[in-house]
């Protein structure tokens, strides 16, 4: 049984607004070391916005983010990446013209320390370094079972594999915290099962803390240690999956569509998936 530790990242009353729309309204929660935290909620609830705040794409108007003991008003993408936060995107964001291998190698850029003059002559320490990184990337390729597409430009791959390559790029950063935005969207059952297995293995073998957004309730209930539920930019529940599943407020806001007759019909439930 894995040990879930102290909070590694804490959001404290984070508020984010776009013009008159409040995307996040005083959201506070913690991500604990080694856990898998699922963030759920109807479309437009603010889930992706929350991830964007964590890795610095969005800067909240109020509130703080505490990451590894340092409290900040705003994160910056470069610092987030350099300090061990990696992520994937809802709509796959890969470098489409590059091969799988090169895409994953970009995840190593921050770890490459040798002066670029050394790299230019491609000799001695720089060569050793490149080889070491390449070896690490090969391990990730093996882990994700994508050996066969190593040299394929990712633009040519089917969607499910692209998502896998994107996970590979994030893993290449050897992150402490991995943010996954709908890692299973658009996948068939088999692909979903594979992805679940990878996520659990990453969490288990590398001890990586994972925060993910997912719409598939079966998946969420299966793999997460804790669930945070957002609705209209507010947090309405936070706890173990079983507890959240039975919370009346959550049923009303979200799970209602799967838990039988809706007590409080929610017009957004019919909008389909993919927002957030």
């Amino acid at each position, binding site marked *: 049984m894995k040990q879930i530790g102290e909070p590694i990242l804490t959001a404290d009353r984070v508020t984010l607004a776009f013009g008159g729309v409040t995307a996040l309204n005083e959201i506070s929660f913690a991500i604990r070391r080694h856990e898998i935290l699922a963030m759920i909620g109807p479309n437009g609830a603010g889930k992706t916005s929350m991830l964007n705040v964590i*890795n610095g*794409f969005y800067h909240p108007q109020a509130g703080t983010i505490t990451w590894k003991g340092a409290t900040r008003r705003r994160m910056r*993408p*470069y610092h*987030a*990446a*350099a300090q061990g936060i*990696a*992520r994937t*995107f809802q709509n796959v*964001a*890969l*470098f*489409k*013209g*590059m091969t799988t291998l*090169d895409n994953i*190698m*970009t*995840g190593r*850029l*921050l770890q*490459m320390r040798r002066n*670029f003059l050394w*790299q*230019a*002559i*491609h000799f001695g320490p720089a060569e050793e370094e490149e080889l070491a990184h390449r070896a690490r990337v090969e391990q990730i390729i093996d882990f994700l079972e994508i050996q066969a597409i190593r040299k394929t*430009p990712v*633009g*040519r791959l089917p969607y499910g594999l692209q998502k896998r390559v994107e996970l590979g*790029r*994030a893993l290449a*950063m050897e992150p402490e915290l991995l943010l996954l935005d709908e890692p299973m969207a658009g996948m068939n059952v088999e692909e979903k099962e594979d992805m679940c297995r990878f996520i659990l293995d990453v969490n288990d073998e590398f001890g990586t803390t994972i925060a993910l957004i997912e719409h598939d309730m079966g998946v969420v209930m299966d793999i997460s240690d804790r669930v945070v539920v957002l609705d209209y930019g507010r947090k309405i529940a936070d706890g173990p999956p079983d507890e959240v599943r039975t919370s009346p407020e959550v049923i009303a806001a979200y799970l209602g569509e799967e838990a039988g007759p809706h007590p409080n019909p929610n017009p957004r439930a019919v909008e389909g998936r993919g927002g957030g």
Partner: protein
Amino acid sequence: MDFFVVEVLIGGLLTGVLYALVALGFVLIFKASGVFNFAQGSMCLFAALALVRLMEVLPVALALLCAAAIMIGLAFAIERLVLRPLVNQAAIILFMATIGITFFLDGLGQSLFGSEVYTLDLGIPKNPLILFEGVIPGGILVNEFDLWAAVIAGLLVAVLAVFFQRTRIGRALRAVADDHQAAQSVGIPLRHIWVIVWSVAGLVALVAGIIWGSKLGVQFSIALVALKALPVLMLGGLTSVPGAIVGGLIVGAGEKLSEVFLGPFLGGGIENWFAYVLALLFLLVRPQGLFGERIIERV
């Protein structure tokens, strides 16, 4: 056989190197940001104007350093004022922004430095040379200046090729060109990359400006030389440094040869349109150019 052909060919190739030099600036920025930088020609003009006016008051070496510093400063300004507010916008938006930069630079350059024709003389020898007199009867006539220009361009290309293809910066550049947000998420500092690329493009513009300025005099028409770089890019591919060179050589040699050998039949003036027609034909057959990245479309 008449060695006149060889002479024309060599003259054409040497001119081609100069086209390649301008094209190179386009390629650098396109590779690194997916943006077609319409302002490259104006940057050449701006750099040449700055240099020629600085040389009036400073020694040559110092003036060169200052001009280089100005181009790097310009890169910082463009990143801060133009690119940073446009992160994550479509390439076409950034392209439009570079058209704005073009007009701004044309205006700024001429109002700061004046709009007359200035002579730029860096002491590069301009004597006609006769080569291979021993091998070929009569030898081959080339302009010494063109030879020097080719040497400079060659060095520049070698340095850039090493810089961009063998360092991690190369991979970072391609990443930034592909997807800003994804690049940021793996910790590539977008701003630094942009400043680096625009600085390098500015320095290439300075070199191109010096060479064209010494040839034609520093005047507004330098900005128009950039137009000749367009067919070069169509031929070579927008994303390839070697492509820019090969494209430049083909265009340079092609237009001189066609002028001399087809000119009498078509009434002359071929030099002016040859490159564009060639580029048009190329677009029909191989739209990505000789060395460009294959365009991948999943349907």
